[in-house]
């Protein structure tokens, strides 16, 4: 088959310390691979993720941003991810309204036991963003080389 897309996207993944970061660790210790272009930032809770961080990532050249947190109802901080859910629902819908492809943003709930899910989600997300190609709509062109 012919290689049609050589593009490898840059993905920023925000993971909450208690569930999703541990889920990523489990993916690691279970040797469940996902592409190397996913880089994780550890936050105490998904509710720590400010929309500004998401936009900054896009501005600096990220092609996709994903947030992972505990499943609703299981938040280590009781209610944190409920707020995340509303905030990111509205933000991502809004970015879509601004013309940013909705496949570039995502929220997933990954528990500490869901290493396999973490790996699956990342593989799927990377595939979707790769298909979209480079993020040109939301970036500061100065950070690019060339």
């Amino acid at each position, binding site marked *: 088959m012919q290689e049609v897309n050589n593009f490898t996207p840059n993905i*920023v993944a925000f993971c909450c310390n208690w569930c999703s970061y541990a889920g990523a*660790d489990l993916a690691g210790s279970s040797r469940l691979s996902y592409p*190397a272009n996913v880089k994780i930032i550890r936050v105490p809770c998904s509710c720590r993720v400010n929309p500004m*961080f998401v936009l900054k990532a896009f501005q600096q050249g990220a092609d996709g941003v994903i947030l992972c947190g505990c499943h609703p109802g299981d938040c280590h901080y009781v*209610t944190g991810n409920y707020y995340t859910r509303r905030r990111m629902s509205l933000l991502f819908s809004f970015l879509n309204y601004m013309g940013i492809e909705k496949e570039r943003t995502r929220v997933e709930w990954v528990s500490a036991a869901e290493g396999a899910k973490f790996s699956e989600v990342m593989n799927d997300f990377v595939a979707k963003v790769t298909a979209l190609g480079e993020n040109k709509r939301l970036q500061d062109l100065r*950070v690019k080389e060339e």
Partner: protein
Amino acid sequence: MQKIGVFICWCGSNIAATVDVVRVAEEIKREPGVVYSADYQYMCSENGQQLIKNAIKEYGLTGIVIGSCSPRMHEATFRKAAESVGLNPYMVEVANLREQVSWIHKDKEEATEKALILVRTAIAKVRLNAPLKEGESPVVKRALVIGGGIAGIQAALDIAEAGYPVDIVEKNATIGGRMAQLDKTFPTLDCSACILTPKMVDCAQNEKIDILSYSEIEEVKGYVGNFSVKIRKKARYVDETKCTGCKICMTKCPSKKGLDEFNMNLKTRTAIHIPFAQAIPNVAVIDPEQCLKLKTGKCGICQKFCGAGAIDYTMKDSFIERQYGAIVVATGFKPIDLTAFNEYGYADNKDVVTSLELERLMNAAGPTNGVLLRPSDMTHPKVITFIQCVGSRDVSGCGKPYCSKICCMYTAKHAMLIREKYPDTEVHVFYIDVRTPGKNYDEFYRRAVEQYNVDYIKGMVGKVYNENGKLMVQGSDLLNNEQIVIPSDLVVLATAIEPEPSVRKIATLLTASIDTNNFLNESHPKLRPVESPTAGVYLAGVCQGPKDIPETVSQASACAAKVIGLLAKDKLKTNPCVASSNEMMCNGCSQCANVCAYGAITYVDKEFRLGGGKTEIRRVASVNPAVCQGCGACTVTCPSGAMDLSGFSSKQIMSEVEAICKK
């Protein structure tokens, strides 16, 4: 000028086989601020830690980055090592090169590149780290138990046993709670009062326990280790210190038509009364709604007859304020209101009763002195039909979606006791499922069916109606696939239980979270089942979820263990990664407090200098670091960015984002 040291761990071959650790350590040396970089086989080993410590001392490092396994594994180890040589433990960052790199990638070039990015990201963060200090807060060595049922009694006894003073606040005039109303208990059929009342007496006699009956929580301030609680002592119009419990007042009181709550309103009582014979404290209370003296000013008979001079009609509610280190919530339950369930005819037929009412009808100290008589005509019921799941497992909106958990067992108990005492009685039970997990529980239920021949019918009841004095119970028999009607003399509804309604107010006062059914939330459903998410608040009994007596008692003891563990400490260490508000930028808009699950944010009016000798008073947010758990929900709610989180500041996360995206 910052001096950053970077330590790349091989983790044997775990990292080194996939990541070119030597190249990473070399290339990282060129990063601005990095003055030292090394790789080593096992950084977590004694020697590895020594290497880190030596470098910190020799190069005067101000921050270090370890490229190793997940920080969830060894962050604490490296922090401790740093601290031992004088570097603040919060100046340590870990780049996860094992779980996030070597274990999931195969291509060495790709893995090494990613490792470099992750280490640079950690460096970017550590550049902005600030030394943090764990706070300390003192612990008041006294516990508060809210609710004096079996859960509260058990928790208080265990805490007192360990030597700590404990107060029980009970809203009723006596402790004992629901268990005191029960007749026998499953699966052993021992008498409830016989096992409960000695414990009540123990409470009264234990000098570490102070029972504040007829009292309610009015206000709660403070936080774990340091709660300040205002308690309202409701006016009982009887001086507790003088009343001897002789009951002469009860024999003389002319107002005798009050409904006896203890007997589920199946009996009347006098305005001045002691709730039941074994009440603790054994002190009378006057019902102000019923007392002629208090209502009309005319009477005063009880005062005339009281030899102890204990009656005081002028008594007012009084308040006391006490300090506690820990709080146990044990507010218990009540059967749900059945007004919405017309189909069972509860409101219209005296002989349709709830299970708790049946407990009283069977109790030797109850309205019928233990002889089972039906309320309408005081005759022996010959056919008794029990209906299970009344309001439980009900998603129609009328009842509760959950299983009340205790009904299957107590119905088996009732059926068995009736068949034992009155073998000529016919007993039917309509059920959806019979749920009997628990030690000796299924055996118990089987005895009811096999030994006592209780007629269990799988199916739901559609209607109960009165026909010529007979209660016609119309239901479906699913196993025989037919509709049946059972003419009965008494119908008993296994009524769903719900948390005592006052728990809502208490949850608000404690900022303890509560679910849609008004059950208090535990901190973790499996691993922290007796702790509320609010630090220092513990949950015992049905206030947390439906449970029977053995479970309630175990949970109460578990709470006590947690409380004792807390009170045994002189000081509590607090997590330094907490939120704080920059007062110069805070609008005081109160948005952040709305999302704080812990009630850690309060607002104060503060005076600010404006220059030119002028001042301005502004409302600003203030975070209590002993209460804040550091989730960061508030930081995103704050539009001005005044609220930030130590250890995970906006600037730090932004710099991590930049480092990752840098091409």
